[in-house]
């Protein structure tokens, strides 16, 4: 991967300036991927590719236009620049538009553990072997788990270059590998089919969960659903397993990012420095977490990454802002900018002290939510209603699995109703959470 991308970025900035742009910004990314999917021992898909993509923004005073391309020929790019400048004239004058202030210091990519050179030695044979082994183990652990949707191993490495007319220059390398398997089981009692999956993701190959571990977790997740039934419609305490709790975090991110706030499209828009959750809730966005999947030295506008405490023991202390939202709201940019909104880095709920077992045992009865299905979250009102799979638990004992139900409530009440937070934080995506218990939600079933 190449210096030539850096040279291309410089050339485009110079061209934009010559064509009359007051400010401009260029991002280039080059990515290589190698992936294999194996199903019932056969390689279903082996994929290898390298691709490049460019995006740019130009400003004429307070007017902006953007463009992106995977056609990196100079003829196309120089025309895109000229046309972007012409289009910027048509945009409305926007007082808050512009590049962020130049911040000369950001963490060195090396300290963030973003790249594992072992990826360069990875060959198709090994990628196939790991997927095949994971599926093989998965199909060997339980006689009822005999079919598979396939196991996949995917490795991607990429190089990101950014430059803008205010002096920002930055680049870093990163790598990500994932191993997953999707398994099907047939219940011996009612013949019903159930499926589930497990996956592991890491920037370091050595840190990926083993084939055995991924297979074992997937089988366990299938097995516990045998004999599932609906439950009566009523209000109950709900415990979210870490991966389903992480889905709540992804909903909440949309409610605390700057764009939703200035547009008042969040139920939290007017709640800054107010208590919005129970004292057990502390939410953090940490772009500096070494090896984190969302970690990076700077955001997509060149603003240095940081750790931001969004909710601290229930108090909403910060919103996550790109440069535009920050100016508009009179707040600081938090290193979450995408150029036209915000994205999370590593957004997680800080763990507490109880184990999942203790949390489940602390209620006389509760619904333990293990999977969520569909949409049904309205961030404007906070209204929440989603399809769910889970386990019915009484005094800490699993009584039977549950399916074909919905859980509903309102995010504001759900946040206030967090009664317990587990010690089992799972940060396997950009959203992470430990087990949590919410006082009460409406379950709709029979």
């Amino acid at each position, binding site marked *: 991967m190449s210096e030539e991308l850096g040279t291309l970025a410089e050339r485009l900035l110079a061209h934009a300036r010559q064509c009359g742009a007051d400010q401009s910004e260029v991002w280039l990314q080059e990515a290589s991927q190698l992936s294999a999917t194996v*199903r019932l021992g*056969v*390689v*279903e*898909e*082996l994929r*290898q*590719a390298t*691709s490049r*993509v460019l995006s740019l923004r130009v400003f004429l005073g307070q007017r*902006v*236009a*953007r*463009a*992106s*391309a*995977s*056609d*990196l020929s100079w*003829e*196309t790019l120089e*025309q*895109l620049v000229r*046309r972007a400048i012409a*289009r*910027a004239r*048509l*945009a*409305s004058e*926007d007082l808050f538009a512009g590049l962020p202030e130049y911040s000369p210091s950001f963490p060195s990519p090396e300290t963030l553990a973003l790249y594992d050179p072992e990826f360069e030695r990875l060959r198709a044979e090994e990628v196939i072997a790991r997927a095949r082994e994971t599926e093989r183990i998965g199909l060997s652990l339980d006689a009822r788990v005999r*079919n598979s*949707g396939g196991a996949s191993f995917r490795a991607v490495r990429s190089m990101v270059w950014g430059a803008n007319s205010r002096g920002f220059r930055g680049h870093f390398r990163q790598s990500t590998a994932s191993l997953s398997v999707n398994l*099907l089981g047939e219940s011996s009692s009612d013949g*019903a089919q159930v*499926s589930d999956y497990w996956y592991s993701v890491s920037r370091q190959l050595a840190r990926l969960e083993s084939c055995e571990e991924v297979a074992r977790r997937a089988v366990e997740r299938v097995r516990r659903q045998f004999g599932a039934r*609906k439950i009566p419609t009523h*209000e109950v305490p709900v415990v979210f397993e870490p991966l389903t709790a992480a889905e709540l975090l992804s909903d909440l991110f949309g409610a605390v990012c700057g764009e939703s706030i200035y*547009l*008042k*499209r969040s139920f939290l828009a007017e709640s800054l420095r107010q208590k919005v959750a129970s004292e057990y809730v502390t939410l953090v966005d940490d772009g500096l977490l070494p090896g984190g999947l969302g970690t990076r030295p700077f955001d997509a506008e060149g603003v240095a990454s940081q750790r931001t405490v969004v909710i601290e023991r229930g108090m909403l202390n910060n919103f996550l802002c790109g440069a535009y939202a920050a100016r508009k709201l009179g707040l600081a940019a938090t290193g979450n900018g995408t150029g036209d909104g915000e994205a999370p880095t590593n957004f997680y709920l800080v763990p507490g002290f109880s184990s999942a077992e203790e949390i489940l045992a602390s209620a006389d009865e509760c619904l333990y939510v293990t999977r969520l*299905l*569909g*949409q*049904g979250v309205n961030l*404007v*009102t906070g*209204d929440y*209603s*989603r*399809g769910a799979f889970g386990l019915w638990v009484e005094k800490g004992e699993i009584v039977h699995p549950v*399916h*074909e*139900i*919905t859980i*509903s409530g*309102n995010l504001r009440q759900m946040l206030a109703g967090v009664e317990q937070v587990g010690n089992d934080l799972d940060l396997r995506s950009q959203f992470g959470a430990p087990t949590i218990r919410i006082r009460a939600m*409406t*379950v*709709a079933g*029979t």
Partner: protein
Amino acid sequence: MAIPFVEFALSNSPTAAFARYYGLEPSELDAVLRRALACGGDFADIYVEYREGSSLHLEEDLLKETREVVALGAGVRVVVGEQSGYAYTNELSAANLLQAAEVAAQIAAGPSRIEAVNLQAALVPGRYPVRLPATRTDIAEKADFLFAANQATRNEDARIRDVQVTWSDELRFILLANSAGELVSDTQPLVTFSVSVIAESNGERQAGWKNFGKRVGLEAFSRQQAETLAQEAARQAVTLLAARPAPAGELPVVLAAGASGVLLHEAVGHPLEADFNRKKLSVFSGCLGEKVASELCTVVDDATLASLRGSLNVDGEGTIPRASTVLITCGVLRAYLQDRLSARLMKLAPTGNGRRQDYAHIPIPRMTNTYLAAGTNDPEEIIRSVARGIYCKSFTGGQVEPAGGKFTFSMHEAYLIEDGHLTYPIKGATLIGSGVEILNNIVAVGHDLELDLGAWACSKQGQAVPVSVGTPTVKIARMTVGGQRA
């Protein structure tokens, strides 16, 4: 834009343009296919794509930004039995395609079985003719639609606060060549217009939205259409200000004609995709010829309809859909949605449903325009037949897990039915059910089939493709409604 490739492709053909600008002459494509099958394999294909697009976004009364996109790339696939090797590049040249072919060929391990491909150009139908490609049109004209829609929402009701309007368009040139000797090209337009508003009254806020998507040119969209869509978004948001919590539990559900087709898309469409069935990953595996639904149900997938989002002259692997595919006739399962790979392995005919998001992905079985055929019931009668239930009018989307057949779909605008009348709007809630059960619980189908013109995008295995959905008014005897009022 005035990119020479695009100008040339429009005035000649995509095939000619890829040859002239990227050296992809039929003889070169032939060489790539031979290289792809150098280690054996049943089938190989090349998919080449050039896409240009633009978008405009209005928010807070400002035209905040405009964007142009140029994307190009090509992928080479080698198929051996149920195995696919795939490689792609976005630096288009015969040399790079040869290299991709070599990488894709790693899936196979045998002697070459091919000497020459002898590509023959096939003609495609013209299901989405365009006079003024939207990507070629002056951006000021499109900006006018945004401002008109913005103004129309505010004229509609003083309680409208935030308004966002987005226009986007694309023009995609594709070229497909395969080892069966087929050489096909197509030019695929797509236009999307969406309006999203927030209404506010007494501290209560509610969202409303309406969008539009078709394979058309600028001549098929007007300022007046923009205003009508905007008024509809505003009406919805204002209506929902009066919404009360939805009930929770099992209730009869009446789906309004049109967008409710998304329920069919999830409950029946995905589980009938051939890959899930071939692999026994669907509740409908092995059910061809069996009764799987109420006899009132006839379900159709039709890529041949003019100018809809899911309409296709050719699918993502060179199959030209010639007719609609009737999936279920009067409750009996008749067909799956096939791509070439699954059709060959299942010994059935391809149906032209092998679609891909773009050059970076292999084709898989997907829906196009999917709908429930009209029945004979009077829509008003259907509502009158419900003592207490839900009437659903618009949706934010759905999801299905094909193995168990459980699916959800989330209502945005819905009403409570009491004693045969719509009494008040209810807050959004998710409905959940199992596909087979719901199909058998369809107890009335209206005569008012409507294909929705909303901008639906369907996602599967990380690939998003444009689709259309449709249905007449339908009554489901009971479904679980995920409201908050237990």
